Every structure is written in C-alpha cells, then in structure tokens.
C-alpha cells in the first residue's frame, strides 16, 4: 500500500463517507470539516499511513472530542488542544507519540484526528476502533483486545489538561463527564493509547480510505449511466437493501445523554404495502420490516436519501423524507462473543440474538 496524503480535496469526501459509516450517529461533521480545512491550509496536508507501515513498538494515540455537539458548534476549539494532549501523553509514557488515529468513523470525530495530525505534523494511521460510530466509550475493538481506555488525557481550549488513570471504564466515563462539564461542555481527549502491534491486531484497517471512497462514490453517483444509482450505491457500499419507504413517523426521547427513538416508514416502490421500523440510540440499532427483524447492531443500519443517497443522521429524520434503508456488514471482530457482549443487540436492550445481516437477509428474501 502506498503512502498517501490528505489534503483539502479529500476532506469533503472523508466527511461524507464517515457520515454514512456513522450509521445514523455522529451528527453533522460541518464544524469538524471547517477545522480540518483550517489546519490543512495553515500546516499543509496530512500523511496517511497504512497500519502495516507502523512499527510494532510505536506509540499510537487515538484523538477525539467529547461533549455536547451544540457546545462544539459555539466554541469550536482552539486548535492547540492536540499539542497539550501530545505533551501530556508523551510525558506520561516517556516516549514520543508516533502517530494519531481516529477512534470512530462518523461525524466530528472522523475529522478531529486530521486536525491534530496537520497541526503537529504527525502522520495519521488509516484505522479506527469501530468501523462505524457507537454511543459509549468502551465500545471499541481494542476493549476486546484488553486495551484500557486510560491513561486518558483530557484538555480544554483554555489550556487545562488532566490525565486519568481509572479502575474501570465506568469511572472513566463518570470522571471525564464531570471534568467536561467544568471545562465548559466540550473537550479534546486522547484515549486507548497503544502500541503499533495492538493497532494492527484489533483495529479496523483502512477505514479513512474507505470513508473517502464512499464519500467520493456518493458525490459522483449520478455520473455513471450503465446502472441505476441505487444499484451502484449498493455495489460500492457492499450493502444490502433492507427497505425503501417514506418516513411517516418519528418518535424521540432524550434519556441520559442519549437520543433514543424510533422511525417508522411506509414502503414505496417494491415495498409498497409494507411497513418498516428502525430503532435508534444515537446510532441505528435494529431494522424491522412488517414485524420481522432484518438487521441489528453491530451491523450498520444506514438511512440515505432515496434520490441523492446522502446519509441521514438520526437528528435529521423528518416526516415525509424518502429513504433507502441499507445494511452494511460490521467489522468481523464485532461478531465474536466478546464483541457481541460489548455491542450486540442485547447490550442495547433489544430482545434478540445477533444473526449476521447476510443470514437475516437471506431468510427474508
């Protein structure tokens, strides 16, 4: 695999592709996109490393932002947060950080590691810990590999920085949330610091490249003439069509820091007369057609506009929208018993066993 760079031209496509992989979550990547544009304009393009290119003993640090999207939309960030994180982590380990990586594909956090890499002139590894987006901190493949979220470093735009060493993920979540609030509701974090060997063993490889390819394909979907746009879309995403319909109801509820809800769709075209439901908790959890489950987490359930194929996040669901519901197979490790314990349907309170998307679809079709 050749080493490549991420410049201004790639940002738009990566953000678009990542919002598809967000599986309904991650929110609007607009602010992240602006920050990445700003950082690349100021510091130049980012080097993207294939996971196989990194040394086994290299210190690799995932970067993310935590907090309320509405706060982020006001305060954005300072841009020097990544320097503070870099310093704290390097000091803690007594070792220089070799490269950054994203924790999840989807929304703002697909963009923030690019900002960090550009600013510090460090490479970005083409890998993440989800291959999609998930709502909770421990829901990363590295948890399966026994990697701890801590030492987790946290910094705000004012320059305050702390480092947490906790006894469990629950404590990490609780302490981080308290500090986030004191710092004004939106902070930058580095967590799951690990060596190159672990990244290679458990990471979802080439996810940045995949985001970019997906984004580019969606952007240019109308340019091919040999196939219908829908067939093209299913082909390049490797997705399975689960439903096509019109949103006829959206039920929402906010509990804790999560947006729960259900979107109900009436079938159109081939699906006329059928009804589908998608349940979500930030991200889409299950898809049901006429009472029969057709897909569940950790497989990706994505809603896209039936004309433009632009991904629709759960906060943008609206009556009357015409959507295509597609299922994308999740990363293999998520299908293991340890993976399913972390992110399987039962963890999210859905009373069903996990059956891979491909099998469920075969049953239905």
């Amino acid at each position, binding site marked *: 695999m050749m080493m490549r760079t991420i410049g201004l031209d790639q940002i738009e496509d990566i953000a678009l592709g990542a919002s598809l992989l967000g599986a309904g979550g991650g929110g609007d990547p607009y602010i992240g996109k602006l920050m990445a544009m700003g950082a690349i304009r100021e510091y130049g393009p980012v080097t993207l490393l294939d996971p196989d290119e990194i040394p086994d003993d290299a210190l690799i640090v995932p970067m993310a932002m935590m907090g*309320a999207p*509405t706060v982020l939309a006001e*305060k*954005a960030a*300072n841009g020097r947060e990544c320097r503070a994180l870099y310093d704290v982590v390097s000091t803690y380990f007594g070792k220089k950080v070799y490269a950054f990586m994203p924790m999840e594909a989807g929304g703002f956090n697909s963009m923030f590691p690019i900002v960090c890499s550009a600013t510090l002139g460090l490479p970005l590894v083409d890998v993440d810990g989800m291959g999609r987006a998930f709502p909770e901190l421990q829901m990363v493949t590295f948890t399966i590999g026994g990697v701890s979220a801590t030492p987790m470093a946290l910094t705000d*735009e004012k320059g305050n920085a702390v480092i947490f060493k906790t006894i469990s993920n629950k404590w990490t979540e609780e302490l981080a949330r308290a500090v986030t609030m004191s710092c004004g509701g939106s902070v930058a974090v580095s967590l799951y610091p690990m060596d190159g060997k672990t990244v290679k063993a458990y990471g979802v490889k080439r996810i940045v490249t995949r985001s970019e390819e997906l984004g580019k394909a969606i952007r240019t979907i109308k340019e091919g003439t040999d196939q219908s746009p829908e067939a093209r879309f299913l082909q390049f995403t490797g997705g399975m069509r689960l439903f096509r319909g019109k949103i006829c109801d959206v039920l929402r509820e906010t509990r804790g820091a999560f947006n729960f809800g259900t979107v109900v769709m009436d079938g159109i075209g081939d699906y006329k007369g059928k009804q589908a439901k998608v349940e979500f908790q930030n991200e889409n959890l299950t898809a049901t057609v006429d009472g029969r489950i057709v897909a569940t987490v950790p497989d990706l359930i994505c809603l896209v506009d039936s004309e433009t194929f632009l991904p629709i996040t759960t906060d943008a669901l609206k009556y*009357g929208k015409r959507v295509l519901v597609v299922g994308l197979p999740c990363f293999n490790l998520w299908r293991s018993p340890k993976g399913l314990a972390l992110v399987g349907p039962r963890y999210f309170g859905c009373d069903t066993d996990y059956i891979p998307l491909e099998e469920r679809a075969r049953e239905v079709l």
Partner: protein
Amino acid sequence: MQYRLGIDVGGTNTDAVLIDDNLAIVADFKQPTSEDVYGGILDALKNILEISKVDRLLITKAMLGTTQCTNAIIERKHLAPVGILRIGAPASVAIPPMIDWSPSLRQVAVASVIVGGGYEYNGKEIAPLDTVATRNFFTSLKGKVEAVAISCVFACVRNDQELAAAALCREVMGDEVHISISSEIGSMGLVERENATILNAALHKVAKTFTDGFNASLRQEGLVNAELYLSQNDGTLMTMEHARRYPILTIACGPTNSIRGADYLCALKESVVIDVGGTTTDIGVIQNGFPRESGVAVSIGGVRTNFRMPDVISIGLGGGSIVRQLDNGEVTVGPDSVGYRITQQALVFGGEVLTATDIAVAANLTVLGDPARVAHLDRSLVHKALAVIKALVEDNLDAIKISSDPVDVVLVGGGSIIVPKDIVGARSVRTPDHFGTANAIGSAISKVSGTYEKLVSFDAVPREQALQMAKDEAVTLAVKSGARRETVEIIEVEEVPLAYYPGNTSRVKIKAAGELA
C-alpha cells in the same frame, strides 16, 4: 377610510396593491421590474393611484418587499467593506472567520481578528473581553471601513461583551460607523451566526439606498402621511430604521410574502401554498398565518447561515418545463424549461418544444394558444406526462407536511394550469383571484413581531415561570417594533431540551406578533 400600500420588487416583476382598513383589496397592479428600481416603484405607484382614485393623503402605511439584499450577495454588488471582530479566544480560533467563503465574497473583509473573551454555555466568562486588543483593532480600521461585524462565543446566551465591544467601536470610530452584533442576528452556532452578521454589515449601504429611495419615491408622489415599513422574511414588518440596521432580515421575503398573500386571499390560516412559475415550483407552509421556518442551516450565496428562513421546497417544474419521451417509453417533465420564451417555443404558441403547458392544453385542463397544434399528441404520452407532474407535486406536498393528515392547498402562479386539481394529500385545492399580486398583498397585510431566544435552566427557574418570562420578553420586543400591545399574540413557542447540559436546560424561542400601531 384609510389605506395601506404594498409594493413588492421581485427579480421579474414589481407589484403594487392598495388595501383598505378591513384588509380588502382596492386595486392591484403589476409591471416588469426595471433596471432603475425607484423609477419602477414610482411608475407602479402612479398607476395604482390612477386606477384606484384613492386620495393619496389617506394612505397611512406603505410596505415594501424587495430582493435587493439577496441580489447584492449573489451578484457581489454594492457590498460594503467590513471589519470583523470575534470575541472568544482561546475558544474558536481553530476556525477563523469566513473560512469556507468563496474568495470573491471573502473580499468584503478588510481585516478580521479574534480577541480574548466569550462565554461558556452557562454564561460564565471564558475570559474577560480583551479591551486593549479590541480598541487597537478598531483604531486600525478607522478610515478604512464604515461597517463592523461583531460576534462572540455564546453571545446567544449572554451578549454583554458584544455590547461592550460595540460601545468601544462607537467611541473609537465615531457615530457614523455601522455595527452589526451577532446576538441580534442569528441563533445558536457561532460560524453560521457570524456569517449572517458579516453579511448584514456588508449590506448596510444597500439598505440605506433602498430605504432612502423608497422614502423619496413616496414623498415625490405626495404620500406624506404614510409611515414606511419593510417586509421581513418571517412575514412581519420592520421600520425603516430597523431595516437599515438589519438588512439581512429582508432576504427571501419574496417567497414569504407570496405564500402569505396567497393564504390570505383564500382566508385560511393553515395551508400549503404551491406557487407554480415558468421554470420552478415553490411549496411553502402557512401555520397560524405565518410561514413555517426552516429548521436546517440555510445557505445564502454559498454562505451557510442559521438565521430564520421560510421552509420552502423548490422543484424544477413549471409551465415551461420540457416534456420528453425516452426510448423505453418513460416520460420526463423538466427540470429544464423554456422559461420566459414559452410564448414563442411551446407547441400551442406555434413553437417546436413540447412543454408541460402543451400537455395541460392537450388534456383539456386549460384552453390556451392554439389547441389544434397539440391534438395530434399520443394520448398515452399525455397521460404519462400528467401522471409525472401529479406525482412530483404530490411527493413534494407530502415531503413538506409534518403528518399524513390532508391539508388545504392554495394553488397559485402563472404555471399552475399544468397541475391537475385532484391532488392526493390535499383536502381542498383553491385558486384565488388577484393571485398575480400575492407578493404585494402579503407585504401589505403583515403584522409586526418580536422574537426572544435564550437558554433557560428549569432547575434555576421553574418551567412555567421561565416560559412566561420569555413570552413577556417577546411581547415587549413586538411592541418595541411598533405593534399595539393589546393585539399582540404569541405565534410560536419552541422549546428544545439540550441533552448534555446540566440544570435541565432548554433553548426557548418565542415569537409574538401584533397589528401595527
């Protein structure tokens, strides 16, 4: 009897309408918009006075709706140079002002700076306002710009620092400088609010020109008793002085006035208005007499803003839409159109292009031009094309509704003849008289409003009490804008719980509107 004059200067036409105290239409008049906008207004004014024979001294209110601000941004003309101050460092500096603006529009900025200051979500200071840097910046702008845009992190929660910076600006740059502050223009979302504020400042000269021009036109025609108002894009009015300070609020008042006017003509207060032109169809919603606002970010001339805009769906369907039959038998309508050349190019007018209007004539929906010229059309082609038109309208009608309940539809516009009247999803379909001047009517019947928006912690103040306080604020703002207090009603209450905030916090937005005093 006293009268109101409504004038709407659109891209294509200038409309004028005169209505009486009871809001009944006395006369209306339409003419093409001229290069010289004020000459055009003057002509329309002369004509409507001539037709109506109304004593010009009895005209006590005159309302103007204009697209000139939109045009100025899209054409990058007459925009004034602006100095941009953002308060909020160390927050927000990762995104400098205007980062994703097109280079041609970015030129309006002469200089920009981000100084220390700003607030957290709860109103606590991130840092005190850096008055030294602020003063230095304004000093450096002196003699270079006549307009300044000031924004501040979380100014939508607290605007003390924006006001302090504005006062400093006056002190340094003098009374003549135009100052736009973000808390008075946009809502949550710093980048979008700042963008709208910069555009507002850049438009101040355009606003001065059209307010002065309108005033002069009216005085020249002897309307000395008329108070002047400008249409805003939420369907309410503002005073001339207000318009000079907030010109951006006039953007998109055209579609707003059009859908309000159409709704008014049918005496409905809840409806969906479908306005079919030559090339495009606009579909908008009227709720409680006002257009529903768009909930998503709105882009003006490629610049993303978050200030209120009417929620309008535009589709490429109109009287001039070109109809084609593909090899596989499928029929398409639009999105391309012969546009204003329809009177030469459509089949019924002796042309060679098959348009949606020709289909309507062939299907006996209307009689126009020479029906014999479409008699040869294949019946299945006509049926298929009509089905496409109907499906386009029905799908988009459905997309703008918020539930599956049928709605009252008002069908207006020169191209509306192409739409079959049996629209699925519509409880009734009406086509009012005078709809050609619906824009000017919408302008003339407008009320004045006030909007109050704030983050409220229901732990600090009980919900009922907090909402009542917010409502009182909105009413006060409406009265300040010129409404008679006893007529002011709350027309919109929006309450959005913010999941990640402590203290059970919601963003509360209240709008009140009343009759002009």
